[in-house]
């Protein structure tokens, strides 16, 4: 496969192969997203869609308190979930990468990923069972005499949503950080120690900066899907933990107002994209 003619043949073969999955993604991802963008500029007129271009949906979404509250809360909860998940995940990834024997690493990763693959709905529901007023945690703590009355701040509010989502997204945060840590040349750490840094400073001046690509990956892969999570806020969030996805679902399936639902979905997506881009940009500047 040498020479310019071979290369173009290679390129053609590659394009032919990739065209099927690529076209599929265009048809079922790019075009539908184009469709919701279009819908967000239209309006629902009883059973008909009024296709005159208007910004009314955006005006409504950005002026009604309920939409702003839900959108703002979704962003805040997603941010907290991201921080909690990534901070909790880092030591695990670090432990598996630096302290577990190479032959046992994959069994650890396997153990970490198994809970993620088991029924999501049932897992979220079980957090309700754990965190509830008569839940496992409260009964346990009461029996142990640690608390006198059941804790109520852990269910049907944003805390419950954070705990549950930090659980649900754990492997998503651990794996990218683990991969980044694995790539670190161990001799760099020795060099740092030889040059007089201690354990702490070596970690902060060598390990952490080198692991940053993994941390950035973990942050994005947790933050972006979290904002659209529907099951967790519905099951454990209560009224104080409701997020934008509930409203999107209501607009689409109950109020039959697809254009407003589409607008809310786009606003959620825009906020996520803006925050993610800002984060990546800040990170680049800070690392350079």
């Amino acid at each position, binding site marked *: 496969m040498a020479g310019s003619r071979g290369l173009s043949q290679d390129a053609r073969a*590659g394009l032919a192969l990739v065209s099927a999955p690529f076209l599929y993604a265009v048809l079922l991802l790019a075009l539908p997203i184009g*469709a*919701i963008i279009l819908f967000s500029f239209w309006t629902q007129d009883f059973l008909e869609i009024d296709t005159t271009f208007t910004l009314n949906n955006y005006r409504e979404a950005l002026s009604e308190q309920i939409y702003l509250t839900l959108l703002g809360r979704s962003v805040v909860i997603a941010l907290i979930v991201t921080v909690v998940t990534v901070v909790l995940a880092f*030591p695990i990834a670090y432990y598996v990468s630096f302290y577990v024997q190479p032959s046992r690493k994959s069994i650890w990763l396997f153990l970490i990923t198994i809970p993620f693959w088991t029924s999501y709905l*049932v897992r979220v529901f079980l957090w309700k069972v754990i965190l509830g007023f008569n839940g496992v945690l409260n009964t346990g703590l009461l029996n142990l005499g640690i608390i006198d009355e059941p804790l109520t701040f852990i269910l049907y509010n944003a805390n419950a949503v954070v705990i549950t989502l930090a659980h649900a997204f754990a492997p998503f945060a651990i794996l990218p950080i683990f991969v980044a840590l694995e790539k670190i040349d161990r001799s760099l750490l020795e060099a740092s120690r030889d040059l007089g840094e201690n354990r702490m400073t070596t970690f902060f001046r060598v390990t952490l900066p080198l692991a940053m690509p993994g941390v950035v990956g973990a942050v994005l892969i947790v933050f972006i899907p979290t904002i659209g999570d529907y099951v967790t806020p519905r099951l454990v969030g209560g009224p104080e933990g409701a997020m934008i996805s509930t409203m999107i679902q209501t607009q689409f399936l109950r109020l039959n107002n697809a254009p407003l639902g589409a607008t809310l979905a786009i606003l959620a997506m825009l906020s996520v994209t803006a925050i993610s881009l800002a984060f990546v940009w800040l990170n680049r500047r800070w690392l350079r």
Partner: protein
Amino acid sequence: MNTLRIYAIGYLIFLYAPIVLLPIFAFNDGQIIAFPLQGFSTRWFAELMTITALHDAVLNSLFIAVLSAVFATILGLCAARAGTRHKWPFKKGMLGFIMVPLVLPEIIVAVSLLIVFVQILDIGLSNWSIIAAHTLICTPFCIAILNGAFANLDPSMEEAAMDLGESRWGAFVKVTLPLVSPGIVSSLLISFTISLDEFIIAFFLSGANPTMPVYIWGMLRFPGQLPAVMALGTILVTVSVILLVTAEYFRRRGLARAGLKDTGGFL
């Protein structure tokens, strides 16, 4: 090191807490999902056998999951083979775009396809709309797994087969495919598991026939049905653990065949 180890074990307990509770409540005789336990019983499993609507939902989900897994694996094979063997203009961008569903909130996929199927194409919703969407979200996972199987696969083996008189396709089918077949099995199993468990897209896109997760969602609203959900959850966890162990076994065998060192999990 020791504190880190204790932390790691604590973290695993946090990860496994919900799953450990599942069988405890599934075999508990009480109607209420709480401690103290009421004694051992298998009646909730027996009750599962009597809910015929649930059986239909399970069959529906199996149909959707099998087809989505097959379609996603075929698309994944194309992309992984192209990505590991060929170079073309805009390669990174095109492959990156195919991976987008991995990070996109699922509700966005759900509502955008809902608009397309119902409002624009006006073809209504059926199992096929869910299959189309599940294929889309499973493909990136298949690509990630199959990339591992294709990477470092020595191209000279296929060339040797062609020198010995096989056609390009023949060489691919007789030489490459067997070498990556463990990766294919693993990719099929993972996408099957994802599709079987996926809720939000199925919730928006199911027509008259709910999938299993959509049916479970309905059950969660009725306190009387919760113990049955626990029993069903126990069965599901057992099945997915078996599937995952099998997938992991094939993934490792694939890596061993390609002569690679094992570096980690599925993702």
